[in-house]
């Protein structure tokens, strides 16, 4: 793939991680990339609060975000039919890079997974990949999210592909992490000011 440049200016980026220092670190990297609208939250309640109040362009979220985890949050965002941020790109951060974890993130509706520890290069390349590889959305009774049938041929600028990387295969969904009632209650709790 030819060399690409990502323009981060005026993109509204929401970073969700329970560690305040980690969010500051990611914020700093994004500022270095040229981003000027970065929001930070520490839990799922904070994400819902932001999502109900404004439109964001991308969510960068930790897989262990309290209280239910980033994958349950992703699932909740994707399944909520009247949520105007339903199709936003979601990048999941995890310390556990095992294939099963990546598959769970993909089945929850995440666009991409990035393994911690982060580096400026790994973060840039994944964001560039999301920007330059738009995927169709699939809506079925059990899944709503980016088409899971894809393979990574390499990140923009020809970097990021590791020897051990495998083509991701389509898997059976293990079942939703949250019931629809739980998703509804998460949104309504934010609307009514509970957290």
């Amino acid at each position, binding site marked *: 793939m030819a060399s690409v*440049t990502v323009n981060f200016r005026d993109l509204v980026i929401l970073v969700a991680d329970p*560690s305040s220092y980690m969010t500051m670190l990611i914020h*700093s*990297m994004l500022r*270095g990339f040229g981003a000027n609208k970065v929001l930070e939250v520490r839990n799922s309640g904070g994400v819902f609060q932001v999502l109900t109040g404004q439109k964001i362009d991308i969510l960068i979220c930790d897989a262990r975000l309290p209280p239910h985890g980033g994958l349950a949050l992703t699932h909740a965002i994707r399944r909520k039919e009247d949520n105007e941020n339903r*199709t936003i*790109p979601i990048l999941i951060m995890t310390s556990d890079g095992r294939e099963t974890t990546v598959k769970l993130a993909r089945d929850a509706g995440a666009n991409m997974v990035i393994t911690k520890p982060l580096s*400026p290069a790994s*973060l840039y390349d994944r964001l560039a990949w999301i920007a330059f590889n738009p995927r169709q959305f699939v809506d079925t009774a059990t899944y709503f999210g980016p088409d899971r049938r894809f393979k990574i041929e390499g990140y923009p600028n020809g970097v990021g592909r590791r020897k051990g990387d495998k083509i991701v295969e389509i898997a059976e969904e293990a079942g939703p992490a949250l019931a629809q009632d739980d998703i509804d209650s998460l949104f309504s709790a934010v609307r009514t000011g509970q957290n």
Partner: protein
Amino acid sequence: MAKHARPEARIFSVDTRFQTMARRPGGVLREKAIELAQAKIDEIQPEFDGWLERELQDLAKLIAKAAAGKAEQNWITAANFRSRQLRDIGATMRCELLSFVADSLCDLFDSIAAGAECNMDSVVCHVDALMLSRQETYRHLQPEQVPELIKGLRLVAKRASL
């Protein structure tokens, strides 16, 4: 009334604002963007030193209480959270040895959380290794530069998981 199952998948294209905006001309070239991001990380190095000290002290207090039989509720979850932070942030801040020791401690806490016996000597030994690796002389060393420490730590971790 039961909902009717949707007969097939609906597949549609989404043109997100992120993709539209990110592909506008005028962005910073990748190599330059990474260089600038690294410079921003270097700017917060003074805060990192203070943060690291506080995190280590808090972790040490948590472990000392548990070792003295006065463990706080959910101390393993709290200690694991701090260890993960030290591992992930430490590596990004180029403290490879610290990150390595914290990673070993995370494995220890993960196995305890999964039901393994809690061997406090192993946990305390890791905390001591963390304290050592934060010192200026060790801070930027790679794990392979201190083979004896790593060998000892691996032995301790292995014994704890038996």
